[in-house]
């Protein structure tokens, strides 16, 4: 238990991580990097869950369960995403997201 650290610190950290993830997702052209940015977003949410659970309802555990679920889902999602990226690479010989633009008008 980290005493003396107010909840706002955790929330600021989570917000920074979240927007760093969004920024990475929108600016990086490499699909793998974008995937990593997505993980950053998910983890920022996990921190929020944990912080609120700990500070607001210390006797309950729903926030932790949620975090565990998010971690599990993020792991499987990463597997699926990597599979998609491998397929994209086989098909287009690139993982630059700007070159993968066949789905348009």
């Amino acid at each position: 238990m980290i005493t003396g650290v107010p909840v706002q610190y955790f929330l600021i950290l989570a917000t920074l991580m979240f927007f760093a993830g969004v920024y990475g997702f929108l600016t990086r052209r490499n699909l793998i990097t974008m995937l990593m940015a997505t993980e950053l977003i998910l983890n920022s949410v996990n921190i929020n869950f944990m912080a609120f659970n700990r500070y607001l309802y210390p006797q309950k555990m729903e926030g932790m369960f949620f975090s565990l679920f998010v971690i599990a889902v993020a792991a499987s999602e990463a597997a699926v995403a990597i599979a998609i990226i491998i397929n994209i690479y086989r098909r287009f010989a690139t993982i630059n997201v700007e070159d993968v633009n066949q789905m348009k008008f």
Partner: protein
Amino acid sequence: MINFGYTIWILLLPFLMFLLLGLAGHKLKPKLSGLLGTAGLGIITVLSYITAYKYFFTSEKVDGAYQKIIALNGVWLQLTENLHIDIGILLDPISVMMLIVVTTVSFMVHIYSIGYMHGEKGFERFFAFLSLFSFSMLGLVVATNIFQMYIFWELVGVSSYLLIGFYYTKPSAVRASKKAFIVTRFADMGFLIGILILSFNTKTFDFISLTSLTGPAITQTGGAAFMGLSVLTWSMIFVYMGGVGKSAMFPFHIWLPDAMEGPTPVSALIHAATMVVAGVYLVARMFPIYSLAAPDALNVVAYVGAFSSLLAAVIACTQTDIKRVLAFSTMSQIGYMMLALGVSGYGGHDGLGYMASMFHLFTHAMFKALLFLGAGAIIHAVHSNHMTEMGGLRKYLPITHATFLIACLTIAGIPPLSGFFSKDEILTAALHHNKLLFAVEYAVAGLTAFYMFRLYFSIFWGKETHYHHTPHEAPALMTIPLIILAIGSVFAGFIPFSKLVTSDGMPFESHIEMSVAVPSVLIGLIGIGIAFIMYRKETAIPDRLAAAFKYSYKWSYNKFYVDEAYIFITKNIIFRYISTPIAWFDRHIIDGTMNSIAFVAQLVSFRIRGFQSGQLQKYGFVFVTGAISLAILLIYLWK
């Protein structure tokens, strides 16, 4: 109570035969399919005669009147609690009589066709259509309700269309079949309107409750009036419009002469004996309503009939195509039947006209079918329809000649042949009712005798024509029906019709009225005499007369330009001033609205389609911006 349940086979058998010949006919030998069709019709002819015998001589009468018997009835379409369309079989004097007429003539025509159509392409198709026609016509005559009648009414129209256009590679036949279908269909629109008005006001389709003397149609004649006539009268006039179309009365007669493009046995069956009298049958079926509740509509029937019979008789005098002469003669004789109904009263001896009409329908079916089949035998021998290319055929075609002469004498009303009796009853009925109509019909009787014998003398006497091939008598398959029908024409007059077929089912005594019979025979003889003088030998009289009455001859020869009037009205008036603006409105306003909506949508979508660029990160940017904007909006601005 006698069980008439077997009468269902009268309907089913020809229908099954149609399916068999229509679906599997091309696999059968032509001869076999012809024989099958004929055998099927033979069976239902026998059934019809049995039915007629049982109905007229063994069925129970109530107070001496023949009853209407529902042999079978089933609900076909249940629309609401009260409104349902049934299919069934109704037996009453006129429907039983029509069963006899239709099956007899149809059977004769079937036998004849085996000979006449021999070697034609589509032999089995012909017999399939004949079976379809027989089925439809029989369904029409035994209809238990007006809607069933309408259904079969359209079916006979379709069969007529198919058979007129039998030689579908011939453009004139195709035109004629289209014309027949469209003209009758137009008239049937009136019939449908009439049915709807009538059943809306009476809440029933059923003939028995419609024509019941205590039924709603007859007792509740009131109701809103339009242009001085009650709603019921209007509905009966509309119903009669259907009859006018089918029976080729003025002004819807234009399809009948053209319908002669079909094979001759078809003309005999459909366009002389059975289908074209459906209009007469319809009026007879609804007769109690016409007579008791809508006398104005009945007057329309009488005048249209009289005018048509006169018009057709005048036209028939100048035509040279033998089948067209017979077609106009048919129209004229049906006009007689319509007139007889129109001048008739209801019940007992007042119903003389009704009886006379049915009587004439019966005898006319025999002798007109005979005339057409005879004409077919002549065409078969000479390979031409035009009487100008015939002459002196009596030596080559003795049997045809004898039977044709009998038929001509019958239609001219010479006693003791059947036409004399029925025509005499009609003239008597007309005399008692309306002197003007009597005078018209009296003149038509003379004209009939004249044009029929003009035809007869031009074909069998007249000039000695040189033929490329010596004409030969038709085969026995064709002459036997001629002989049977000739016997029918001779003796049908002795059937005591007034005992059997009357307006209210009660038999009454009818007798030959000498004051009518003698003058009508006289005018018939005068007509024959004039024809004898003009056409017995080749003379210059016809040409001189034609030259002397140039204009009337020209008008009559061109059928009083009714066809041209139709063309003028449709092409120059309806097409130009109604159809063209409607077409313009449809193309420019209706289509234009739809097209401009589509055009605007397309325009907008071309402008905005750039948003869908395929760039994943652009979508993400828009999504994130939107989410943040919504968050700001909901948290800070939405109070």
